[in-house]
């Protein structure tokens, strides 16, 4: 099937004036003044507040719930339990149907009718006149639990005889997937050497500073439900709410308030969302709920925690010829969130940027009695990067070849694109060797050895590490509302102002600014006259919101398609007014002019005047009235029907941005404390629409990547109790803990996107895990450390150093 390619990305539209420029974010002025409108800032008359009673057990049968004491408290309006809510509501809707991914489904309800499966799972909900009363009453609900064995280890979960978490299933395996290419057995037989081991990512989460927050109102006379949410996905949330509540989808309106950070976490469908909507519907009163931080840790959705057992066959020249990987992902309890699919992405990204002809990749996704995974920036790609980068470092150590040289030896070359990986993924474009060369220059890599020795003479142990991350974007899954299309409406007013309504949303990163830039350049309009509206299902075209860096990649492309049509129509009218052919026209700053005679021009307002006020006049009569267009864009380079493709398989991502991180750290061998002295990054996500916003986004990715590598950790004990439920224990890096970042961009345009964009939102988060491990190992070469687990706390690093000193090697 021919795949659409965009060889001349800017063939339609005006010269780029705003795209590529550092335009400041349009919302900043209000946000910096504290005048944002987050969901928690909404107050409605007669509003009730809710509090959730959450399970204190990781796994337990619910025998009986006694709500009498809670109901007796003055100010309590309603106490909701499974018995009532599940009489009225159907099962929760999955935005990604498990069957589409070949996985098992569990029928899940807003409140669990029989048993709880993780600490923090909602068990009952109280609505009261104020939040204090609601909380107090929730704590007075008495639940009689019969404790069941908690399954907290993902490998033990898959053993025969393990306690079953989903009673309808025969085991705790949610799903599995296998990819194979070449002849791995032969590659291993013919190898000069084999490295093997296990890489583990630990459990951590997105942690936006704004927790989840919602206000709901049901107008029973009109039969309309309005749901203000801190969400990334208004349309999906609308679908979920309508389906679960049994309301007509068109009677539900979801409005995205300003979002105080999301990072994947604010994607539906949480049972909490269904429950507060139900209470508003049932009670006929507005409901407000703002999640508390401890609740976010317990039940807001987790991420990471994968074990990757690997063995790799290599040749003496450093080329890796064979790879076997077995991934076991601990996705927590099954849920209607989208997190568990991150494990599939890990598997489908291996072997990332390397050409390894003989691969065998096996994924097993296990459910456990822990908080379900929800989407989180990185979406599984970070684990694939961690594995492949640790592996490249290990091959370098085994062969005695420099770490950069080993990577250069194994890279997919620029001329190999589009490149088909073992999973069926098609990597669109890239120039990895050039990016590596650039990074090495930034780091002054060749001189580092002597710097390290000089520092060592002064008693300081410094080391350098590099890592290459691959961050595919534009995620598109079958049987889901996670897809590669989106809509945009452009509506030009009679005075020539331009309203842009998008189906994509902003989680707080400012993509509305980038979309305005794209529309301005496509039309040749003045940026100040463009107004972007997002996140309201009532007024925006159907679209899939924000995930997988799609807002510019797909939403920007949809906006561009719509702007191309608007431009064409305006040019037709202008050509009548100027008595030239449309092809002779160009536009800039809201003026449409004749290319060879710039002064021969009409303004946008002249054109819109002709369209709206002189519809029967000489210039507009030949055309349909109005100046409004809705266009949908669907990304190419994705396929869900293996039979249509010569390679078979399955490709979920159209776009494959990547980045190379290099860092210099200082290690205190006595304490295991690590300080990052330099952090460099070469970034290639194709065309950058707004370098200022893109760089800001990257910095955030580095911060979260370093946070995960060194500081952040969700720790469960052997009973499935979460030990980290505050920011005292879950340590997010402060400004003091993070280094100054140095960034360079390389722009290899994607041939599969009309703008050449690849998506920037997740870049930066994947590389720190391995880059920092690599730098620590390099700082103490005599110990031959092999760091395979995170977070790199002082205790863990010290432990590795101690073991290496005692044993003479450093496997840790």
């Amino acid at each position: 099937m021919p795949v659409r390619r965009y060889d001349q990305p800017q063939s339609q539209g005006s010269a780029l004036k705003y795209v590529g420029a550092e335009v400041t974010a349009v919302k900043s002025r209000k946000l910096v003044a504290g005048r944002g409108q987050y969901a928690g800032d909404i107050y409605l008359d007669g509003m009730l507040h809710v509090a959730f009673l959450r399970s204190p057990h990781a796994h337990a049968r619910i025998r009986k719930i006694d709500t009498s004491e809670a109901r007796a408290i003055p100010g309590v309006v309603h106490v909701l339990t499974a018995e009532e809510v599940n009489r009225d509501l159907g099962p929760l809707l999955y935005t990604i149907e498990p069957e589409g991914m070949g996985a098992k489904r569990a029928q899940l309800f807003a409140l669990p009718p029989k048993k709880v499966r993780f600490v923090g799972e909602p068990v009952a909900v109280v609505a009261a006149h104020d939040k204090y009363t609601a909380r107090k009453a929730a704590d007075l609900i008495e639940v009689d639990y019969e404790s069941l064995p908690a399954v907290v280890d993902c490998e033990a979960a898959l053993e025969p005889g393990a306690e079953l978490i989903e009673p309808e299933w025969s085991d705790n395996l949610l799903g599995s997937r296998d990819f194979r290419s070449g002849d791995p057995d032969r590659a291993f037989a013919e190898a000069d050497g084999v490295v093997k081991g296990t890489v583990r990512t630990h459990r951590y989460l997105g942690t936006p500073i704004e927790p989840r927050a919602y206000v709901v109102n049901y107008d029973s006379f009109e039969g309309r439900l309005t749901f203000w949410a801190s969400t990334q996905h208004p349309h999906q949330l609308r679908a979920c709410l309508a389906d679960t509540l049994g309301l007509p989808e068109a009677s539900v309106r979801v409005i995205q308030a300003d979002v105080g950070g999301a990072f994947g976490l604010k994607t539906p469908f949480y049972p909490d969302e269904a429950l507060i909507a139900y209470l508003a519907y049932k009670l006929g009163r507005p409901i407000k709920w703002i999640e508390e931080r401890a609740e976010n840790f317990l039940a807001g959705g987790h991420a990471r925690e994968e074990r990757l057992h690997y063995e790799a066959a290599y040749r003496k020249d450093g080329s890796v010829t064979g790879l076997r990987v077995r991934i076991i992902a601990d996705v927590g309890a099954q849920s209607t969130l989208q997190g568990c699919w991150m494990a599939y992405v890990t598997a489908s990204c291996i072997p990332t940027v390397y050409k390894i002809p003989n691969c065998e990749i096996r994924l097993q996704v296990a459910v456990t009695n822990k908080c379900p995974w929800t989407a989180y920036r990185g979406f599984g790609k970070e684990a694939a990067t961690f594995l492949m980068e640790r592996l490249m470092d290990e091959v370098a150590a085994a062969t005695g070849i420099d770490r950069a040289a080993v990577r250069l030896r194994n890279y997919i070359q620029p001329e190999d694109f589009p490149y088909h990986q073992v999973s069926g993924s098609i990597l669109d474009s890239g120039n990895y060797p050039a990016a590596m060369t650039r990074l090495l220059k930034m780091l002054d890599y060749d001189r580092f050895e002597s710097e390290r020795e000089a520092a060592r003479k002064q008693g300081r142990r410094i080391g350098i590490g590099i890592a290459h991350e691959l961050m595919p974007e534009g995620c598109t899954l079958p049987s889901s509302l996670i897809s590669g299309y989106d809509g945009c409406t452009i509506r030009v007013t009679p005075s020539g102002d331009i309203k842009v309504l998008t189906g994509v949303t902003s989680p707080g990163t400012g993509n509305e600014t980038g979309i305005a830039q794209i529309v301005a350049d496509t039309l040749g309009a003045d940026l100040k006259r463009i107004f972007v509206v997002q996140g309201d299902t009532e007024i925006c075209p159907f679209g899939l919101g924000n995930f997988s860096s799609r807002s510019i990649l797909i939403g920007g492309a949809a906006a561009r398609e719509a702007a191309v049509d608007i431009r064409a129509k305006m040019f037709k009218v202008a050509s009548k007014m100027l008595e030239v052919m449309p092809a002779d026209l160009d536009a800039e700053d809201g003026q449409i002019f004749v290319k060879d005679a710039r002064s021969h021009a009409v303004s946008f307002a002249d054109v819109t005047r002709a369209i709206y006020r002189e519809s029967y006049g000489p210039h507009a009569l030949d055309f349909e009235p109005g100046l409004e267009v809705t266009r949908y864009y669907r990304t190419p380079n994705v396929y869900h029907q293996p039979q249509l493709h010569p390679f078979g398989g399955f490709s979920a991502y159209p776009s494959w941005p990547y980045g190379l991180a290099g860092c210099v750290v200082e290690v205190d061998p006595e304490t295991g404390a690590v300080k990052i002295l330099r952090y460099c990054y070469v970034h290639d996500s194709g065309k950058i629409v707004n370098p200022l916003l893109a760089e800001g986004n990257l910095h955030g990715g580095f911060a979260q990547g370093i946070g995960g590598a060194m500081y952040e950790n969700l720790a469960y004990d052997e009973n499935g109790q979460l030990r980290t439920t505050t920011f005292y224990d879950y340590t997010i890096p402060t400004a003091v803990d993070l280094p100054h970042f140095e960034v360079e961009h390389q722009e290899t345009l994607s041939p599969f996107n009309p703008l050449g964009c690849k998506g920037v939102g997740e870049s930066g988060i994947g590389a720190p895990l391995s880059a920092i491990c690599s730098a620590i190992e390099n700082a103490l070469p005599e110990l031959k450390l092999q760091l395979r687990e995170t977070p790199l706390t002082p205790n863990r690093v010290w432990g590795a150093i101690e073991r290496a000193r005692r044993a003479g090697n450093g496997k840790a």
Partner: protein
Amino acid sequence: MISQEYEFFAPKELAEALAILHRFAGKARPLSGGMTLVPMMTLGVAQPEAIVSLNHIAGLDFIVETPEIIRIGAMTRHRTLETNTLIRRYLPLLSEAASHIGDVQVRHRGTIGGSLSHADPAADYPPIMLVIGARMKIANAAGERWVAARDYFKGLMETDLRPGDLLIEIEAPKLAGRFGTGYQRLHRIEGNFPIVNAAAVIEQGFRSARLALGGIGDRALLVEIEKHLRNGFNDAALDAISDAAYAVAKDAPSDLNGDTEYRRAMARVFAKRAVKLAAAAIPAN
């Protein structure tokens, strides 16, 4: 959020505060900065029947000197201790420790009295109190008493304070002139409690020397080091100090920030580092 109801008192006089604390017999909590108590109430860990705010009582927030000692009111905010010139000159360890507590906002509000009353085993102040030879003045409805720092810290978040008691003042001898001091801490992120901390005070000529460690037991503990320095400051002395610190840390806790083995090893490292710093800081004259 705080869900339990409680009575709130904001007395203007100390005597009134003490009377209320007496009346509630341990079920009222005095509130100073609230940087620990209010989060504990928010998390439901503390559920007092009454709160007695000390923020409206005059005369509990002071730093004064006499020829020999520095007197500090219990309501003195961390930020004041961090920046006050008397403290910086005569008790530099204390200003150093104060500068590491939480962050600017927390230091603006939190008080030394509150921190010492809470007595977290890894807090910044306790080892300092031990090595500077501080005394605590405790008041209650019946009267006042002084308790030496080494008798004040009793166990895990346990002090000499009994129901109805209130810590109102801290005093310590001035440590300028012939003393060298050193404070070292290990932490995960800026603003966190230390995993392990160590404070040392050494007198010229090694006539006296004190070392205390935090984060290595249920409370901050003194390590006997004077005898090891009798023959001067050398590698053998440091090794002996390291061994002594390791022994003192035998009951070090184990948690996500550090297991027992690690904390004991860090007791060695930070003992040596604090002593080295203090020794290097002894004035030459």
